[in-house]
C-alpha cells in the first residue's frame, strides 16, 4: 500500500492543462463533444489485416497526421504512441499556457506510464532482423520501443529536465504515474507533465494483447464491450490517452494560469492477495485509502469513473467494492471508455481529463451501449447527466493485481 506524502507536507497539486488523443476524438474539444454525445470510436480494425484473428474490433485513432505536427527528425525515431504522446504534450502545454522555453529546465519534469512500449516500431525492426539481418535494424530501435521513451522524448523536445521517469503497472499505471508526479511536485518541482498515451494496434501488439486474455471476439461494435451488463463478454482495446500539466497551486497562481481544472486530492494503490487465497481483492481498500488521503467522505464524491473491465468476474468485484464504500446505487458510476475501448495506461489519465471537464461543465458523460445488470446495484450513467460535479473518483486496475484510485476535486476560484 502506498499513499501520498505524510500529513504536514500537503502542497496542493492542480491540473492546469490537458492534451487528449482518443479514438472518438483527437484533441480535447473534439473528444469532449463526442463523449457527451455518446459517439464511439470503436470499429473494425483497419491498421492491419485482422480478419483472421479471434478479435477484430478496436478503438483506433483516425486521421492523425504526425508529419503535419512533428519535425522529420522525430518522425524517423518514434513509434506511433510516442508521436501521439508528443502531440498531446504540445496540446497540454498550450492549454496550460506554459511556454517551456521561458521556464527553468529543472523546474519541469515528465512522468508518464506505459503499458507495452512502441510495438509497431519494434515489430518493423524485428521483421528486418529476421528477414534481412542485424545491419537492417534501425539504430533508433535502441530506444523507440522502450517504456520510458514517451517521457524521454517529451523531456528532450521541451527541455523539461526535472524529475522524470516511467511507471509500468498496466492500466493502473496511468494513475500511479500521476501520483508520482504529485510526489515530485510536493518535493519541490513546480511543474510535471504526467499521464500516458499507449498504442499497440499492430499485428504483433495484437497477438500480445490476445495472449493476455479478456478481449471481446464480438464483431458488433455496439455489443462488443459491455461492462456491468449481463452480456459482458470482454473488452475492446484502443489506442490513445491523455497528458496533463500538473503544478503546485502556488506556481499556477504565480504565473497566472488561465484555468485550474481541479486538484489531485487523493490517491492510493493496493495489490491484490494471491489468487484463490479467499481474501478480499484490494480495490475497496484502494478506494477507502484514496478518500482518506483526500480527507473526503464517500458522500462527497459526485461520480466514479470505473475501471470497467467488461468481464463478469472483475465487473462484479468492482461493483462490490463501489457498493461497499458508497452503498448500493448511492453514487453515479460511468465508463466513457465504452466509447474508446480500454487504452491500457492511457485509460486512467483520459478519465482524469474527463473528470476535469465534468467538473468544469457540470455534466457526467455517459457509458454507452449497456443495460446495467441489476445484481451489481450500481447507478450507471447511460445518458449524459447534468449535475454539479465537485469531486470525482477514478479507478484503474492492472493485470496481475494492481489497484489504484485517485480523487480529483474542484478548486475554489
Amino acid at each position: 500500500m502506498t499513499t501520498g506524502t505524510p500529513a504536514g507536507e500537503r502542497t496542493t497539486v492542480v491540473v492546469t492543462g490537458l492534451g487528449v488523443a482518443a479514438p472518438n476524438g483527437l484533441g480535447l474539444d473534439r473528444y469532449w463533444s463526442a463523449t457527451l454525445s455518446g459517439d464511439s470510436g470503436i470499429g473494425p480494425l483497419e491498421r492491419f489485416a485482422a480478419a483472421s484473428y479471434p478479435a477484430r474490433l478496436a478503438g483506433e485513432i483516425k486521421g492523425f497526421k504526425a508529419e503535419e505536427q512533428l519535425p522529420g527528425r522525430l518522425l524517423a525515431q518514434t513509434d506511433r504512441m510516442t508521436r501521439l504522446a508528443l502531440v498531446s504534450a504540445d496540446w497540454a502545454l498550450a492549454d496550460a499556457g506554459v511556454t517551456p522555453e521561458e521556464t527553468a529546465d529543472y523546474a519541469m519534469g515528465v512522468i508518464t506510464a506505459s503499458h507495452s512500449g512502441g510495438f509497431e516500431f519494434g515489430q518493423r525492426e524485428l521483421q528486418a532482423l529476421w528477414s534481412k539481418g542485424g545491419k537492417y535494424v534501425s539504430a533508433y530501435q535502441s530506444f523507440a520501443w522502450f517504456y520510458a521513451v514517451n517521457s524521454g522524448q517529451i523531456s528532450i523536445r521541451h527541455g523539461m529536465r526535472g524529475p522524470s521517469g516511467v511507471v509500468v503497472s498496466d492500466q493502473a499505471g496511468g494513475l500511479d504515474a500521476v501520483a508520482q508526479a504529485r510526489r515530485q511536485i510536493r518535493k519541490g518541482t513546480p511543474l510535471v507533465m504526467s499521464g500516458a498515451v499507449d498504442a499497440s494496434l499492430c499485428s504483433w501488439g495484437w497477438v500480445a494483447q490476445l495472449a493476455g486474455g479478456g478481449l471481446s471476439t464480438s464483431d458488433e461494435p455496439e455489443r462488443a464491450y459491455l461492462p456491468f451488463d449481463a452480456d459482458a463478454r470482454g473488452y475492446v482495446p484502443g489506442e490513445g490517452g491523455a497528458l496533463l500539466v500538473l503544478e503546485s497551486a502556488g506556481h499556477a497562481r504565480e504565473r497566472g494560469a488561465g484555468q485550474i481544472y481541479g486538484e489531485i486530492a487523493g490517491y492510493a494503490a493496493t495489490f491484490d492477495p494471491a489468487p484463490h487465497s479467499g481474501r478480499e481483492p484490494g480495490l475497496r481498500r484502494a478506494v477507502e485509502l484514496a478518500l482518506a488521503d483526500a480527507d473526503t467522505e464517500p458522500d462527497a464524491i459526485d461520480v466514479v469513473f470505473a475501471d470497467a473491465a467488461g468481464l463478469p468476474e472483475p465487473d462484479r468485484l468492482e461493483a462490490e467494492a463501489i457498493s461497499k464504500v458508497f452503498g448500493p446505487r448511492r453514487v453515479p458510476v460511468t465508463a466513457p471508455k465504452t466509447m474508446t475501448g480500454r487504452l491500457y495506461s492511457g485509460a486512467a489519465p483520459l478519465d482524469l481529463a474527463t473528470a476535469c471537464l465534468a467538473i468544469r461543465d457540470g455534466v457526467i458523460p455517459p457509458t454507452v451501449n449497456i443495460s446495467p445488470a441489476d445484481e451489481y446495484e450500481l447507478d450507471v450513467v447511460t445518458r449524459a447527466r447534468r449535475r454539479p460535479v465537485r469531486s470525482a473518483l477514478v479507478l484503474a486496475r492492472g493485470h496481475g493485481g494492481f489497484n489504484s484510485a485517485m480523487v480529483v476535486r474542484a478548486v475554489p476560484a
Partner: protein
Amino acid sequence: MPADFTPDDLKRILREGAGTDDAVDLDTDILDTAFTALGYESLAMLETFGRIEREYGIDLAEDTLTDDLTPRRLIAVITGQLSGTPAA
C-alpha cells in the same frame, strides 16, 4: 552495388534514415558543415552509416565518425572505399 556516391545520395540517405531538421535545409551548401552542426548526433550518424554500409556493401571504420566530420569528408571516405583507394 552503386559505383559512386554523390552528395545527393548522402542527402537521400539522411532523409530516409534520420530525417531532416526544420532548421536545416540540406539543399543548401552543406558539404563543409559538420554533421553535428546540421543536427545529426551520434545515433543519427550510426543509422546513416548503417544505411550506407548495407546499400553500398562497404564497411565504414568506427574512427570515421569524429565530432567534426563533414559531408565532404564522409563522401571522400566512401568514394575511396568504392574505388578501392583509401581516402587520403
